[in-house]
Structure formats: structure tokens, C-alpha cells
């Protein structure tokens, strides 16, 4: 798993880390049962704060993506296999919506901004978790 963080983007680092792990699960780069690097190793490899890595792992556990086993590290959960099916269905929904928007004359940037604004509003109302980046 190759992780890359953008320190100056303004998006909290623990959210970036969570998004990248989730993305790796969605693409199949990480599969259920796979072990993540220890928090300490990841902190040293990425030269980032160990507390921030710990926060990302705890949140991922809270969302049911990883399981933290005391002493042996973090593992991708079984339930993520189901999640990747949901993602595939969602892709079809997004595809048809985007096609309609493009047909009505909107540009890619305009569509992206509209979607991001909607996500940001939901997040403020507490109906959405994650960075939405």
C-alpha cells in the first residue's frame, strides 16, 4: 500500500490517511484480512505524528473498516468485502447522474464543485463523515 499525504492542503491529515486506506480497500489494493503497518512504522515512514496515525486507525476501527488487535496491529475487516459491492452499485448511480449533467451543458469543474458543496453541507449537518476530498 502506497500512501501519500499532502501536508499543506488544509485537509486534516488523519482524514487523508483514512480516505487513502478506504480507497485502497475499494480498489482491492487492501483486502479483508490484510495487515496495515504498525502505527509507529507508518509514522516513521511518512514522517508524521504518531498520535495522528493513531487517530486515523481508531476512526477506521470505529467505521468498521479495520480491526485493531492488541499487540499485533491493524487488520482490514471482513465486512469491507460487502462495502465494495455497495461502491460498485453507487458507481452506476453516479454515472447516470453525471451523464445527465454533462448533457445539460455543465463542465467537469462545475459538476465537481456542485457535488463538493452538497457534501460539505451534509457534513455540516452531521449527516456525513469523512473529508469529502
Amino acid at each position, binding site marked *: 500500500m502506497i500512501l501519500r499525504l499532502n501536508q*499543506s492542503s*488544509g485537509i486534516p491529515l*488523519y482524514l487523508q490517511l483514512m480516505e487513502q486506506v478506504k480507497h485502497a480497500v475499494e480498489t482491492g489494493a487492501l483486502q479483508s484480512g490484510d495487515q496495515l503497518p504498525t502505527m*509507529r512504522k507508518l509514522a*516513521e515512514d511518512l*514522517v*508524521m*505524528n504518531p*498520535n495522528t496515525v493513531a487517530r486515523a486507525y481508531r476512526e477506521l476501527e470505529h467505521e468498521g473498516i479495520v480491526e485493531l488487535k492488541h499487540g499485533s496491529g491493524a487488520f482490514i475487516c471482513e465486512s469491507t468485502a460487502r462495502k465494495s459491492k455497495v461502491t460498485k452499485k453507487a458507481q452506476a448511480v453516479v454515472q447516470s447522474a453525471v451523464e445527465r449533467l454533462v448533457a445539460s451543458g455543465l463542465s467537469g469543474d462545475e459538476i465537481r464543485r456542485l457535488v463538493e458543496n452538497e457534501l460539505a453541507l451534509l457534513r455540516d449537518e452531521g449527516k456525513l463523515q469523512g473529508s469529502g476530498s
Partner: protein
Amino acid sequence: MNDFAIEVSGLKKSYRNQRALNHLDLRVPAGSIFGFLGRNGAGKTTTIKILMGMLRADGGTARIFGMDIGDPRLCMEARSRIGFVTEDKDLFPYMTVEQMIRFTRPFFPRWRDDLESRYLKIFDLPPKRKISDLSKGMRSKLMLLIAVCHGAELLILDEPTDGLDPAATEEVLRELVAIAASQQTTIFFSSHQLTEVEQIADSICIVDKGRAIVTGVLDDLKARYQRLQVVLENESAVPARWVEGVDHVRREGRTLSILASGNISAIVGQIESLPGATFERFPVGLKEIFLENVRSDENALV
């Protein structure tokens, strides 16, 4: 067990009639890597000197691991638990690396031989070389080695990467992260290098004109702060009063740029009440938070 490695409240210090610290408040959680940020002359070094017992404050209190450093006996005890790297890297230039380490060791009963040999190797420090012949980066590493090896629970580092090239900086940062992860050491470092603070700090304090103006967990600050770019339909339609959370507003023609430090949904509500206004939202990095808070406000409307 103290939750805070450092607790400072209402700290005041003046030099003649120059005010260096003006009611500074600061709380450094135990186990954190804490970035202490400010422009030159903002009060960073004064604060550090007071924490180290090298200067006396005019008012307020400072505690390290709960011990009041205004009390000379407690201050001595606190100091034995602190590793310190100064801005001017004061080592004895005529000694070799090896001599400097041998000279320092006896002062610290909890000296860690294991860490000494580890860091001599990692930092690639030549034991026989004179300190006067070391590069700036090597001197920083030697000071860091000494600070770490005396078994400190708190490292206070004044501009630890000042004058280092990017590769040496990355190496020092990597070791700081490793020290924090493996020794449960609290690291308090001052810097004006925003990128390195953003890279390794979990909590920060921005000090300006002797006061703490922004403080908190860095990821929480990033989540709270946002920039809203508003395009107005009618040039005159700007609220006379903004709701709470609007820190700075800049206007250029039909565009308003708002820096918000929270309360976003109320701010969005206020923008949506402006006739014909559209807006976009952008995440805000530490650099922007820093600059917006320490800049002299010539164009600001709030």
C-alpha cells in the same frame, strides 16, 4: 500523572519598556509533538527561556509536569526531566564529538547508553571530529543526541532545524517522530517553518505580539477553518455585521473572500440570504491560518 507537560497561564515579561509576553496562555498535552509558531520577535524564545528557568517572568505562572518553575527547587527538578536544544547550538567548539558527550553524561544519572550508540550511528556523527569543524546540521544533531540521551521526558527545541538543508531537516524530523513514538516523550518545538510544523505536530500554538492567538489540535483547526469565496450580484450588498466565526473578510469588486474559524452553517445561511450571491468553499492550510492571523490588517473589513 499530569495531562499537560507544560502549562502556562497569564505569563508576562517586559524588557525595559518593550513588552515581550502579554498574558500568554499555553497548554502542551503530555505525549504530543507541539509546534510553537510565531514571527521573529513574537515571544517564542522568551517563553522558552522562562520555561528553562533562564529568565524570570514579571507575572503569571508556568508549570512543567505540574511543578511551578517559579520555585527554585521545583525548577531544578523540572529541568532534570527536560532535554533542551537552543537556537544558537551552544556546544564547546574546542571539544570533539566524543569529548562533548563524555563531558555531558555525568550531569545526567539517567543517561541512555543504548540511545547514545543508536543516534551516533543514525546521525552519522564522527566521534573524533572537533565541534568547530562540524557543519550546522551536524551540530543540531549532536545537540539533539545529547538532549535525547539524558532520558528526558520533555524535549524543548528552539528552532531545531534552523539552517539545515531539506535532507537534513527531513532526517531530524523523522527522528523526532521516532522519539515521540518509542519513548513517549513530549516534544515542544518552536519554528517559523510552517511546513515542518504541519508535517509532524499534532497540536500547535501561534503566538503573536506576546499572546497566544490560535491554539489547538492541528487537524481540528483544519477542520474548523474554511475559506468561503462569495460572488455578489449587487456590489453594495454586504452585511454590516457578520455572524460569529467570520474572522476576516476581504473584498475585491464583486468578490468577497471570507476566512471562517467555525460556525460554518450559520455563515452559509447569512451568505444565502444575500440576493443572488453564490459561493464556494475551500479547505484552509496552516500557512493561511498563520498569515491571516499575524498579518497587519490593511484591507480587512472585520
